[in-house]
């Protein structure tokens, strides 16, 4: 009881802090200087219709690189953590309903396509690499559900992950030589505004991000799926 009241007191204190923060909130009347810059100059500099994409991929591209790295790390750590389990893998056959298999066989290509569409069009419409990647990963979930027992090779995923990661970095470096700096998207022509192949390197980069995120998330799920709890 005493413990709980102390904890409650702490939460009350935090609420007090947050109250101060909240009371400073008064809505927005317009864009601030930074956002204004993106809204006005963003189009000519980056050429992506989706301003969020131009911020994510270009202006704050380093953040995005970092965030992809975090997923990469997570996948690596999980693989490392459950490493000992892999060697003693016992293949557990589970009976999967015929319906699910058929459905997945039909659905899988569609889902893959949707995912790819989402990240390729990230500079035009809502969505992009992360969302597309998540969709790809959900395909992986479906695959695992339907074809349990069949091994899905880590190697393939790792390969996709590594290649897209390196491509991301290389594109970034190209920016230093061909354009204004690391991760500058104008290494390719900005193209016609609103078209698929516009906004310079954004579609390319976002595709790699999508592939990478998809591969990483799939890897995470795969590791968790394949762990067979052998350690006592």
């Amino acid at each position, binding site marked *: 009881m005493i413990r709980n009241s102390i904890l409650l007191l702490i939460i009350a204190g935090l609420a007090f802090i947050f109250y101060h923060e909240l009371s400073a909130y008064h809505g927005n009347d317009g864009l601030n200087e930074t956002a204004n810059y993106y809204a006005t100059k963003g189009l000519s500099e980056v050429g992506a219709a989706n301003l969020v994409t131009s911020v994510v991929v270009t202006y704050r*591209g380093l953040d995005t690189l970092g965030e992809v790295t975090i997923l990469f790390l997570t996948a*690596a750590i999980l693989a490392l953590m459950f490493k*000992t389990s892999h060697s003693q893998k016992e293949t557990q056959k589970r009976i999967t309903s015929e319906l699910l298999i058929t459905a997945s066989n039909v659905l899988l290509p569609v889902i893959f396509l949707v995912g790819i569409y989402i990240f390729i069009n990230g500079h035009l419409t809502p969505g992009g690499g992360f969302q597309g990647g998540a969709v790809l990963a959900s395909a992986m979930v479906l695959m695992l559900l339907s074809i349990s027992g069949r091994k899905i090779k880590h190697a393939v995923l*790792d390969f996709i992950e590594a290649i897209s990661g*390196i491509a991301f970095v290389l594109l970034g*470096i190209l920016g230093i030589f061909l354009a204004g700096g690391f991760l500058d998207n104008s290494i390719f022509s900005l193209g016609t505004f609103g078209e698929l192949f516009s906004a310079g390197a954004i579609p390319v980069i976002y595709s790699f991000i999508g592939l990478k995120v998809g591969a990483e998330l799939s890897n995470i799920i795969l590791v968790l799926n394949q762990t067979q709890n052998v350690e006592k």
Partner: protein
Amino acid sequence: MVSPIYIIAVLLGIAFLLGLFKQPGANFVRFAAVITLAFPVFVSVGWLIHFIIDPAEPFMVYTAGALPPFSINLKMGLEEAFMTSAVNVLGFFGFIYLYKTLKAQGEKAVVLFLVLIMGLNVVIMTRDIFNLFVFLEISSIALIGMIFFKRDLNSFSAGFKYLIAVTVISSFLLIGIGFIYYLGGTLNIDDFIANNNGLTRGLSTAVFLVLIAVLLELKPFPANGWALDVYQAAHPGINAIISAGTATAALFAVYKLLPFGGDLWLNIAVIIGLITFLGSNFLGISQKNANRLLGYSSIGQIGLLLAVMGFSKHLGEHFQMVFFALFISHFLAKAGLFWLSGLIAKDEIKDWAVLRKKPHLLFLFGLFVFTLIGFPPFPSFYGKWQLVMDLASNYNYWWIGLILLGSIFEGVYLFRWLGYAMKLEPEEGSSIKLDWEKIIPIAVFGLLIFLASYFTNEIFPSNFNINLIPVYFVLFLFVIDFLPAYIKNTIAIAGMGFYAYYIYPDIEQDTLRLVFAGIFLLGGILTMFAGYSVKGRRPGFFPFAIMMYAGLIGLVEAENLFQFFFAWELMTLGSYILIIRGKKSILHAYNYMLFSLGGAYMIFMGIALAYNGHTSISLEMLQTASFPGWAYTLLALGFLTKTAALGFHIWLPGAHAEAESDVSPMVSGILLKGGVFGLLVLFMAMGGEQAGEHPLLYALGWLGAITALGGNLMAVFQEDAKRLLAYSSVGNLGYILFAFAFMTNIGWLTGLTYSINHFLFKTLLFLAIGGVVWRVKTHNMYEMGGLIKRMPWSFIAVLIGIITLAGIPPLSGYAGKWLFYNAVITKGWYFQGAIVFFAGTIAFLYCFKLIYSIFLGQPKDKFRKVKEAPIWYLIPQFILMIGIMVFSARPDLILKPIGDLLSQSAYFPTDPLSWENVTASTNLGYWSGYKIMLVIGGMFVVLLAWLMIMSRKAKNVKQFNIVYAGERPFTPETTHYSHNMFAPFNKALGFLTTPVVTDFWNGVNDTSHAFADSFRKIYTGNGQTYIAHILAYIVIVYLILL
């Protein structure tokens, strides 16, 4: 210059690439990683050199083809270059150290390592607050992936605690960042600082959230249990990265963000930092687990560095220097210690005794410990000095007090640990596996400490210049430590001789200094002679002996307080190692170190107080000290710890008695004079005889008198010959203190005479007794007896020694007494004088015991064949005896110039001693050493002749011609006449020798340990409680700020 963006690109690119390689290419993976990690070292060190050579504008890396604040930019300036260099060097060697561990973990672990180093680099360089957040997360996560390398329950639970703690902290950071963007309109650090002057309530809360989050990343006390658990559970190689690498980056992140909060947050940083420094070190004192202890220490050091950042306004242009010095010490030493811990591969600090088997590693361990504590010539010494001086100029005395107190706590556990490593018996069968990939990083960091020390000395303000010749000589002795002892001994003696010749012209005019230089250098040479009797290499002895002498002579040479303090600490360091070399001296050396540390910090604080408002730190500055009362008292107390005044004496008997035979005379006859010299410097600064009625002097006079009585009393009841001499030293130093406290011309002469005498006879006695002990292998006097026939020369030496000690005419001890009575009468301190006089009569008792028990009476069977002491012990004894004779016969040779100096100086113009050839006279009487010598000598010859004639007919009985009757006692030793020799006196006066002081200090020790023990119970080990600590910490700091 290579753009720092390539650090990110290369590390990350290779990390991604390595994902492709599977087990078969495993070795290749790690090899590639080593090459990859060398690249950022190359880049950042390149920039560092660039900025050091040419302090140019920082280099900015822009990304995305847009300018900040609209895109993320990185900055590479001098500070960034230094910090990234540190991190990258650590990364490189840390990887080499972890090579085998990583191999066992597979290629994913290598990837984590690369990404971690990359993340830390960006955290340091980025100028965008959200980017900072992302890369802080990256480095935390990469670390979390490495904490569980041991794969036991502890490491997993520690990793989980770390994970949840970091996540909570970053939640607050994220909210703060959101509102900073909302209210400040930018995410760019420079932009925000430039455009936001006044903080509104909402903005200040947002800034609060951001800053408290980054501060919490530094693990402030007491919201840091999660980090401690990690230190305890993780692989030491990882701990090194956390302590030296992650903390470095987080510290720099705080440094970048602190300007957000203005001056207010500078103060917060100071408070948080110092509470952490103090609290963490305090809790460390009762910690037994080595890695966890290092964790406490590490967190404490980071707290200190944080406080230094908070002090940046006070430090002004010195900030970079102070920060560099303190940082590099922590960085190199802590990484080295964690790495060492990995080699030991055991948990308890007592297990480190195994280091004894590998002297080189032991040397490195000592090096790291001394670097951390801040001994010269290591960088943190310079850093602490400048920090304390600048704080003093701004009246921040409480802060200084806290810093010094924290440093003492740090010393308490570090020196206990060092003592264990040096002296405890290693466990049976334990050993250290020497892997080269682990040794190399440790050794490299050890070397870097020397490099950093040199560099710190270079960038230190030039007028503080330290004479480094003795230091280099000590280093040289370390290098040639593989040679046999006699060669090193010769080199050491030659070095000291040369140095005496070298400095003679500088101090020729200043007789006072000349006397002390003579005691230190010539005395040093004499005591070194005894070292020739040691066979073999005697590893580690000579460098430290010379270090002690270098410190002592440095005191004499010092022209300013910095040089003085430098020398003082150097002397402490050397003598500590000398003392701990003794057989059972682990506890005594520890006590010695703690008292020395406490004393040194009192001196430090005294200097700091005196310094306020001055621009000069010359010794003369003390004359016009600010806060003279406090400053002088602290200085006096500090020096008294070294002279072992009653109350501070408990380290001395053990330390002197247990030391090696030839070390005892060094630390007794010579080392104690260092403290005396300090007192003289202080007393002169107080203004000589004008300060005669100063209450401090009055108190010191009493203290001296009581010390004299107490020391002598305790000496009487000793059974251990060396311990007896040691207590006698306590008493003698009491006389000296008493005499100097008169603050009169003649009082000082008395004090100096006592000092010279004490040097002569105590060195002589310790050498003589040391020679005896060398042969009979015991300290207990009741086990000796009758050695006069076997060791006649030693007997003569002891006889001369005790005659001088007891002040019996004709030897120079009597000269001291004569001066003493004059001084007492002139001054009028009759009552104290009576006490000292009484103490003098007690001295007769133990003098008698010493010579009687050892040399007279029945010899023991086992010592029938014992030989005379080694010739190398006897030679210096004879030189000393000649010295005593000369000084007794012609005291004017030394006393007259000193007297002239004193009376001609501004300090002691009145009532000098007047000399007429060899006859000295005051208005109370006259005395001529020469004539007394003749008279007494004549009487002696007459008496001797008479005795010879009278005893010619006496039968020469064989020494063993006595027949016992009755039963054989069970414990024959206790029937020896000298066992409990003065039992009747003990009944009468024994109550005075109850170890009140020892009990007192034990009480202090126990109480603080008990407090620390009960307080660290807040680290319950429950991850949830740690989270509650963090949240409560946030709330409390917020409420305080309100």
